[in-house]
């Protein structure tokens, strides 16, 4: 487990990324391959959201980062004490079809990127002195090998891929934080 408390400023985002990949490379294998790009992309959006939306660019906020890595899996937890948000209130990103140029969105892609590139994304709104908690989890296998997926998850993956999403939300637990009221970011 790696823990790090970072100023909530964009200039410190690379430090958060460095902590994540140091933890992965020290404790996990196989090599990340393309999962690296996906984790980087999701982490960037998560950190941006905290700095720009939770703290709204106000200096003094902090991001408490916790990274747990083991074979082929990493869990990244980002805590902040800024403004909470309602994942269900975020408009869905609609990927452009039929070259509809005018409809191309210029923002609102961050949550979609997180949901798409990570296997699990869960958000708990802070209350009663507890912080907002965003958890990102990613699993990967060596390139060329089939993804080892437990039967329950396989069914969820199948369902989610049919609806155009990758697996987004699966129940999990943590000894550090009570997530009994955690709001998953599963699309309704």
């Amino acid at each position, binding site marked *: 487990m790696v823990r790090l408390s970072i100023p909530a400023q964009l200039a410190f985002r690379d430090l958060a990324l460095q902590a994540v990949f140091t933890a992965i490379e020290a404790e996990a294998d196989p090599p990340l391959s393309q999962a690296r790009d*996906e984790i980087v*992309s999701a982490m960037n959006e998560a950190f941006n959201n905290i700095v720009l939306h939770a703290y709204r660019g106000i200096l003094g906020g902090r991001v408490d980062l916790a990274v747990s890595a083991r074979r082929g899996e990493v869990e990244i937890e980002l805590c902040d004490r800024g403004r909470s948000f309602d994942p269900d209130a975020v408009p869905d990103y609609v990927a452009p*079809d039929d070259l509809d*140029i005018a409809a*191309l969105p*210029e*923002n609102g892609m961050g949550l979609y*990127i997180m949901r798409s590139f990570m296997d699990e994304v869960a958000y708990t709104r802070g209350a009663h002195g507890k912080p907002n908690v965003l958890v990102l989890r990613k699993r990967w296998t060596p390139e060329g090998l089939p993804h080892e997926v437990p039967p329950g998850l396989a069914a969820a993956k199948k369902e989610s891929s049919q609806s155009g999403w990758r697996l987004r939300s699966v129940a999990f637990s943590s000894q550090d934080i009570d997530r009994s009221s955690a709001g998953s970011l599963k699309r309704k």
Partner: protein
Amino acid sequence: MTTTSRTDSGDETILRIEGTLDAATAPDLRGVVDAIVDEGRLLITLELSGLRLIDSSGVGVIVSLFKRVRANGGQVRIQGLRDQPRAIFRLLRLDRVFPT
């Protein structure tokens, strides 16, 4: 950190973007985009082989350029997209919109 260089050659403008295009650096690129649009440049090539990382803020600026140039009757072409930026463009299905 982002490095941008603009080269005008006849009707075509080549905009080379290198490094990281993200929430911290995208505002700087907006000024370059505004200038290109205000000058009425219509044939734009984004050369992105040196772009190491992009986030949704960076994508937003490129989409803005694309929409504004297209609205003026022009075209934005992308070349050199690779690695993480390529993964983002594919995810957002922008690779189907931008001529590459």
